């Protein structure tokens, strides 16, 4: 799909392509870490937080956002196919950020899934 890439330096779509995947991982990390810490503490036991459920839900949501960001970056990259990375803005800047976004999305999709699988496979509240 060849989209006409947005031109502005503050385009939300462009920044989503670059920042969406890291943000998704950050959210999975922050909330997931908090859940694992809280659900194993004495007062937190009463809250009945199921680590596996939270782990899978967070992984699925983050995965979806990261994939969306990556696809946006791919579309942007193809839309600026004729530019070089040090061309003048907006085309050069878009091409550069699209390359960045594709790589970043791939990396964070990988770590999102790795983390989620680890949570599901390992026993809850088991001291390391």
């Amino acid at each position, binding site marked *: 799909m060849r989209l006409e890439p947005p031109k502005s330096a503050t385009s939300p779509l462009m920044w989503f392509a670059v920042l969406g995947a890291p943000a998704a991982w950050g959210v999975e990390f922050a909330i997931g870490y908090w859940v694992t*810490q*809280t659900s194993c503490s004495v*007062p*937190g036991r009463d809250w009945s937080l199921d680590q596996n459920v939270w782990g899978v839900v967070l992984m699925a949501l983050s995965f979806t956002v990261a994939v969306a960001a990556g696809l946006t970056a791919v579309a942007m990259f193809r839309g600026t196919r004729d530019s070089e990375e040090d061309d003048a803005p907006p085309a050069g800047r878009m091409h550069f950020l699209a390359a960045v976004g594709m790589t970043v999305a791939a990396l964070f999709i990988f770590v999102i899934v790795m983390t989620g699988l680890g949570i599901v496979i390992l026993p809850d509240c088991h001291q390391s």
Partner: protein
Amino acid sequence: MSDVTRSMEATTADATARVVRQRRTFASGWWGMALLIATEFTLFASLIASYFYLRFQNDQWPPAGIEDPSLALPLALTGILVLTTVPMFGAVAAGRAGHRWRAWMLVALAMVVQGAYLGLQIWLFADDMNSFSPSATAYGSIYFTLLGVHHVHVAVGLALDLWLLGALAFGLTNYRFLALRVIALYWYFVAFIGVAVVITQIYPSL
């Protein structure tokens, strides 16, 4: 090239208004304050995270012998602090349009209310110290530290207001308009943190 502004040379209200209209991005001073806010935000995030970390190490919170925190007065005071962002916002709008004295009056109004807020908060702080001590339990330590650090930020804001009132009394240059803008930004931040801190403070009663 001639249409690029020499912004620091805007030393009258009209010239300042013109520079502000032409500028396309945030000024350096704005970025500086935004980054200072980022560090202070992270400091408060660390303190609030420490509060909840300690909470989950303790079965009873607050510990035995300490009352649950009251809800009404802290929430009301925080509401007042948040409301002072309105005159600050108005002051920036007035400054942007070149109305120096309107900006000055709005900052002065905000400062009076902020000062009253701080005074009441300090009174409450001292009152709390009479019922439980920061050097007896971890609850006390984090409670008073979190509140105290916020009050220090409010006090710094008052000092900034005082400087601003002095500076604006002498005229509206681009520099002083930027100062007005970043000090307002600081207050928006302090108000936001005030909400986060009060929610943390009253959390055991929620």
